């Protein structure tokens, strides 16, 4: 009996490959959109990975994306902000996973408009939390008054939140549907 005969090993391999592929997709999209400030599809991909594959994988994807992107970043590397972004990015995956556990796209497909609105609102709220945490981390790192940092970051936060609300609202359902169809039968777990 080799290691592939063990179903748990198979699942571990699939999980590892899913995480690797999603992280690669996030990184690729991030570097492509490097010149576009505060418009990233990474957050959507992390959220969807959490939704489809569970909060643990979603959080892992969020952490790993920033583990790479935060270090190899043309805007520079600051350890404190790097840690803050890694942790806050994982919130997308965790939230997606928790939502995915209580919601089935197939069952809810009759109410696509409502579902889109829910995903859009989730995108907005999660991005608000992400911006809040990272702006506070920025303020503490560079000894800037927290209120000043939050206020100065508002225009960027609004763009980030609005773009994520639109992306989550429009793209989540097609992406999740495709992934769930592609991995039908494979996703017996949602970690």
């Amino acid at each position, binding site marked *: 009996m080799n290691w592939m005969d063990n179903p748990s090993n198979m699942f571990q391999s699939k999980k590892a490959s899913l995480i690797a592929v999603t992280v690669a997709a996030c990184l690729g999209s991030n570097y492509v959109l490097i010149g576009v400030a505060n418009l990233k599809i990474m957050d959507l991909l992390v959220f969807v990975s959490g939704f489809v594959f569970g909060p643990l994988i979603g959080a892992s994807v969020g952490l790993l994306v920033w583990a790479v992107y935060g270090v190899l970043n043309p805007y520079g590397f600051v350890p404190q902000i790097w840690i803050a972004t890694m942790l806050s990015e994982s919130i997308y995956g965790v939230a997606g996973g928790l939502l995915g556990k209580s919601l089935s796209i197939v069952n809810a497909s009759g109410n696509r408009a409502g579902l889109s*609105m829910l995903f859009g609102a989730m995108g907005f709220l999660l991005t608000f939390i992400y911006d809040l945490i990272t702006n506070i981390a920025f303020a503490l790192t560079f000894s800037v008054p927290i209120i000043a940092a939050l206020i100065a970051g*508002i225009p960027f936060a*609004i763009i980030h939140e609005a773009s994520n609300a639109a992306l989550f609202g429009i793209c989540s359902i097609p992406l999740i549907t495709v992934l769930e169809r592609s991995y039908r039968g494979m996703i017996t777990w949602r970690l």
Partner: protein
Amino acid sequence: MASLRNRWTLAAICILCWAIAASLLLGYYYYQYTDLVSRLERSKAIINLGIDYGNGTRVWFNGTRGLTLYDAMLEAGWNVDAESYGTMGLYVKAINGVEQSIEQSRYWTWWMWTNLGWAHGGSACDKYVLSNGETILWYYSYADPKTFEMTPPP
């Protein structure tokens, strides 16, 4: 999922997003506004402002602050009755209850102290941007009815 079944829950979530966005914008623009006001406050000029009623009474308000001459007049606590002429600015008809008199040909005019004496103000008071240390006097001038030349302050 309950939030999808209950439309009110979904509406509440969307309204929460809207409220957050509106609050963020409100906070941002409030900060911008207060910052601009404080910058303008710091950039106000300090001048010596005086008023001469043409009857021997002259009162000085030294150290008056303002961006424009009109600001300084209000800062000094004057009661100014003025009429707007659009882009040309304000035309002052009365100060502290003393109104211009067409019959007596007396009008309110402002004058600036220079090395050569009093120089007539060249623009409407709300269009004139003050500089630090200027000495400006409002004078209830007599105007020649034919030439409309103003009598400078003594």
